[in-house]
């Protein structure tokens, strides 16, 4: 992240809304944070209605089942609309706003001369399901299925093959201590379902 586009949630939105500094907020959508994203957007814009064009979306911690079952940035558009954001403002959050925050809006982010022709066609701006997708001017997907061939790029041998390491042994997973035999107090991490950022 650059200092122009950061992703702490509400405080940045409020700051951006006051427009005294060129702050922008990037809202993440991921499997573990999706639950709160729509609420953050709604709360932030309630405090700072002028911040709409300073908010953009990115995704984080998604796996294949998330993308297939819930969607990618398209899901964030749907969540934002559901949270009360106007559809066109939500689309801007997924496209132009991020491009401007990273200063690549001369290449992407809008349908205008000189930009890459990356275009998503939807039947309904509120529901935002892609019926067709163009990338660099070519149709690459229709009705939820890829129509273009994807060729994996060549990969360096440094990226593939076994990891050069000595075999692990069970002892490597034991915790040693100099303390005399007997019960000890240890610092442990607890795992709570649906929680990512609390003190464990």
């Amino acid at each position, binding site marked *: 992240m650059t200092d122009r586009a950061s992703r702490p949630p509400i405080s940045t939105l409020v700051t951006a809304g006051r427009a005294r500094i060129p702050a922008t907020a990037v809202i993440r959508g991921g499997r573990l944070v999706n639950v709160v994203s729509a609420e953050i957007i709604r709360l932030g814009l309630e405090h700072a209605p002028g911040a709409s064009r300073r908010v953009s979306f990115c995704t984080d911690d998604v796996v294949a089942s998330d993308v297939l079952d819930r969607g990618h940035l398209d899901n964030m558009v749907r969540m934002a609309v559901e949270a009360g954001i106007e559809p066109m403002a939500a689309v801007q959050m997924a496209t132009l706003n991020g491009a401007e925050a990273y200063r690549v809006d001369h290449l992407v982010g809008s349908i205008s001369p000189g930009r890459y022709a990356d275009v998503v066609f939807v039947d309904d701006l509120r529901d935002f399901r892609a019926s067709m997708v163009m990338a660099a001017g070519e149709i690459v997907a229709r009705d939820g299925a890829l129509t273009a061939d994807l060729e994996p790029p060549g990969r360096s041998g440094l990226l593939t093959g076994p990891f050069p390491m000595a075999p692990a042994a069970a002892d490597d997973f034991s915790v040693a201590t100099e303390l005399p035999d007997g019960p000890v107090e240890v610092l442990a*991490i607890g795992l709570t379902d649906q929680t990512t950022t609390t003190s464990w």
Partner: protein
Amino acid sequence: MIGASPEDMAVAVNHLAAEGGGQVAVEDGRVVEFLPLPIGGIVSDLDPTEMRAAEERLDRAAKALGCRVDWPFMYLFFLPITSIPDYAITDVGPVDVAAMAVFDPVLGPAAK
């Protein structure tokens, strides 16, 4: 890596090292589920629908081992991150995130 048996944890690590990376579930010394991620140990060329099926098989395998959280592998992605939450488990040991220092998880003799 999360485990209840040091022997199975060693089997899991050695399997991943030999295969060039991926996600694995091990029970009683046996690999019961494995998703190869052969590119840098973290990426695959699998079709997304095949990847989804593999993710679901792994989650089911972890639950069969007694894991009670919905997405155990997703939580594993977070453990090595030294920015959130307060502690991380890394290749150089457990890390106190606020102090940005490795620490000894054994604090001292247990209170009587």
